């Protein structure tokens, strides 16, 4: 066992260390870069698991009356799929990127609280394993154990002991609660870092848009995640100590769970999406060879989305019977949030306009993102029209809408980010050829599945049903929806192969393979443990543009 820090050894000596030492380094690390990688890799693993769950569901629904999985299993599949995708895939990947990039982008050497950071990762991993342990460990009364089957938003009173005996629901409750604790810690970390540890010259107004999105979602997390934790504590008390928070038989309110949950749940999807916007805001300018159009409005739009998102939650409850006044109020707030969101799209278009667009893989994913997210946003505006939502809430139209947001929008942005920053993280480029196959197959498969899915919704098919009658005219729609799945699976497999092959044989990247402008490209690929030998002085929003174009720096234009 060597006493020397690996960064002080020669590369040959570092490579010769026993794998156990490597593993130990990764387990005890408090380095934001390593924790970022751990977050993203874990998130991608859970992504594959949740994708398998989705595949089983789509197989079951491909035709009416199939028996691929029994009803109880199907109900567990959609619960685990939704819960995993939000808490074990989306959040970790987004905060993982934040972890890796924020200190580099603002010229810091690490996050404010490195040990808290490590704690956050390991507690998330524990929570993910706990949730999946329920598949084998959660036996309960009358065989009603196993994984939770209450849906990812776990409405009361279905979650009460009376209607869900056994411990399956407790696995959901505790795992999500524990994951939430970790996320709150990371959010505190990011806010403290961005406010107090920016490098010389890095004013708030010069931070990359991605950092603004991370700070916004971290601040949002501080406000919205505790209400979920509170509701989960209440559910725990109901289930174990006989409390009556959501016990309708004792005068409790089932709707109160929905208010608390969605007060968290709606802003949560903006927490997922805003960093996706951040990725796109970094990548489009570099591949259009133009500065981002309207930095200030983009920042204002980001922050206002974060704020307004806190006021829109009950659009998930338009059919609960809140009354005309509340329905109208929440319809309005939901429509309003479309304004800053739409502005972002215009800003990106204006950035590309007049540029020299290079269609490398990150940009391909961003282009798909633009069209798909436009569609997602528009179906969202449609659903904000409350009477329209009275028809389509809880139908496959909503499922299509949010998959357009989360896959068509967020996942494509995440893949763009991976292709863009993989060279920085690993020192090697991902294959362009495999990347193009990945992107196009995913575009075709995703749209085949999810554009079609709007049809089932409009034809009256509700969500969360394990099969459907044969005489409602839904068969062909479901079949076509399912046909998109194998294409998406192949696309993801190609991505996995791309990563595996490129790690070993990818072209060497160098410090700045994309000719980009933010601080992370001013250090080696991968960066040393201390990030920068000397922290660069920031002179504008594009410090590297200033260095490369000393005759025409950004400063006077900003």
């Amino acid at each position, binding site marked *: 066992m060597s006493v020397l820090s690996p960064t002080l050894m020669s590369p040959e000596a570092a490579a010769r260390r026993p794998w156990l030492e490597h593993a130990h380094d990764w387990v005890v690390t408090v380095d934001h870069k390593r924790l970022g990688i751990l977050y993203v890799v874990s998130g991608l693993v859970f992504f594959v698991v949740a994708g398998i769950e989705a595949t089983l569901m789509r197989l079951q629904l491909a035709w009416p009356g199939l028996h691929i999985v029994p009803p109880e299993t199907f109900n567990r599949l959609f619960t685990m799929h939704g819960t995993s995708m939000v808490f074990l895939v989306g959040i970790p990947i987004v905060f993982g990127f934040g972890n890796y990039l924020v200190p580099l982008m603002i010229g810091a050497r690490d996050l404010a609280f490195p040990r808290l950071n490590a704690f956050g990762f390991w507690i998330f991993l524990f929570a993910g394993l706990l949730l999946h342990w329920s598949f084998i460990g959660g036996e309960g009364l009358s065989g009603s154990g196993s994984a939770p089957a209450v849906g990812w938003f776990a409405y009361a*009173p279905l979650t009460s002991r009376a209607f869900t005996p056994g411990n399956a629901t407790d696995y959901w409750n505790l795992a999500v609660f524990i994951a939430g604790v970790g996320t709150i810690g990371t959010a505190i970390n990011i806010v403290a870092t961005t406010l107090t540890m920016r490098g010389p010259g890095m004013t708030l107004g010069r931070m990359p848009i991605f950092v603004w999105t991370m700070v916004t979602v971290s601040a949002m997390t501080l406000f919205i995640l505790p209400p979920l934790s509170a509701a989960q504590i209440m559910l725990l008390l109901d289930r174990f100590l006989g409390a009556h928070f959501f016990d309708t038989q004792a005068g409790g309110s089932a709707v109160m769970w929905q208010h608390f949950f969605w007060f968290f749940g709606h802003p949560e999807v903006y927490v997922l999406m805003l960093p996706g916007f951040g990725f796109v805001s970094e990548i489009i300018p570099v591949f259009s060879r133009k500065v981002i159009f309207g930095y200030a409005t983009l920042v204002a739009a980001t922050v206002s989305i974060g704020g307004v998102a806190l006021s829109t939650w009950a659009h998930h409850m338009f059919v609960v019977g809140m009354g005309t006044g509340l329905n109208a109020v929440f319809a309005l707030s939901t429509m309003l949030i479309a304004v800053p969101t739409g502005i972002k799209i215009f800003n990106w278009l204006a950035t590309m306009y007049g540029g020299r667009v290079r269609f490398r893989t990150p940009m391909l994913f961003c282009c798909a993102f633009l069209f798909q997210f436009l569609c997602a946003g528009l179906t969202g505006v449609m659903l904000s029209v409350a009477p329209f*939502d009275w028809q389509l809430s809880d139908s496959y139209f909503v499922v299509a809408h949010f998959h357009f947001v989360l896959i068509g929008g967020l996942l494509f942005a995440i893949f763009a980010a991976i292709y863009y920053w993989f060279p920085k993280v690993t020192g090697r480029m991902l294959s362009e050829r495999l990347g193009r196959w990945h992107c196009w197959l995913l575009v075709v498969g995703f749209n085949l599945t999810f554009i079609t899915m709007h049809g089932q919704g409009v034809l009256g098919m*509700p969500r969360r049903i394990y099969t*459907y009658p044969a*005489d*409602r005219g839904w068969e062909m729609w479901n079949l076509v929806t399912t046909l998109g799945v194998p294409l998406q699976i192949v696309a993801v497999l190609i991505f996995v192969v791309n990563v595996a092959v490129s790690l070993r044989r990818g072209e060497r990247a160098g410090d700045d393979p994309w000719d980009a402008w933010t601080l992370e490209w001013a250090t080696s690929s991968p960066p040393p443990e201390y990030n920068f030998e000397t922290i660069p002085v920031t002179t504008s929003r594009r410090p590297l543009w200033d260095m490369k174009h000393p005759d025409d720096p950004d400063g006077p234009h900003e």
Partner: protein
Amino acid sequence: MPTAQTPSIFDPVSSPALAIRELSFVVLGLSAVIFVVVAGVAAYTLVRFRNRPGDGRREPPQVYGSTQIELAWTVVPFLIVMVLFLVTARYIYGIEGRAMPSDALEVTVVGNQWWWEIRYPRLGIVTANELHVPVSDPARPTPTFVTLQSADVIHSFWVPQLAGKMDVIPNKTNRMWIDPRVPGTYVGQCAEYCGTQHAWMLLEVIVHPRDEFDRWVAAQQTPAVTDPAVRAGRELFLSLSCINCHTVRGTPANGVFGPDLTHLMSRRTIAAGAARNTPEALRAWVDAPGAIKPGVRMPAMKLAKSELDSLTTYLLTLR
């Protein structure tokens, strides 16, 4: 009676659903225009400004922003949103704010895991899974006002061709209304996940011409048929725990946990749509409900074959 059809939201026959379709045309039209314009600009931009090989390493002119343009594309969407909201509010109040006329037909629907209890309080009728209503003439509407309650967890009452859905929530009473203008059968189902058999909590709304509806009411109001030929089956029924859950008016059976069976054979399906109401299916259901609808609350009666036959023969007389 026409058979079931596709419950499309674009095929409405009742005022709430008609209003929503009207509104949806506005919304879809607006969205389509926005999509075409924005996607068009995006496509044009990507094609027109793509990097061509001869461009070399020169960077294009850097444009940092434009206050006028950014103001314009903030104000215009904001105005569109305001207009959309005002239109929406009008429809919200128009549909939800409708007061119940004193001569409306009142129905109470109680959601159970996993079937619907349908009561007509002023007519003294209790049935299950099928909601029968009279057709409504748009010139002189005769709407049906539905009161929604739950016996256990949250369900949702959704018949797309008649109205938007409304949740059925324990410890809360919700209300909605329909006024179907065309006779026929309109299908729907529970639209809020409520447990294992949420998928088989189907709904049928049968809209009758007025005289046909009155005949249906009269038939439902009579107590259960007492056919002497099935006396053995009836006594078996009354001696078993069936009566703890089911009601058959005119007999001592008055359980309320399961569907009212007084006019069981007047319904098209059993098990909330999981099976057709045929003698074979009925027999199989009584024998082992879990085989047709796994997880259902009704226990398997585990009767001997002859008892099962006798019981089924009795049930088949409950027209």
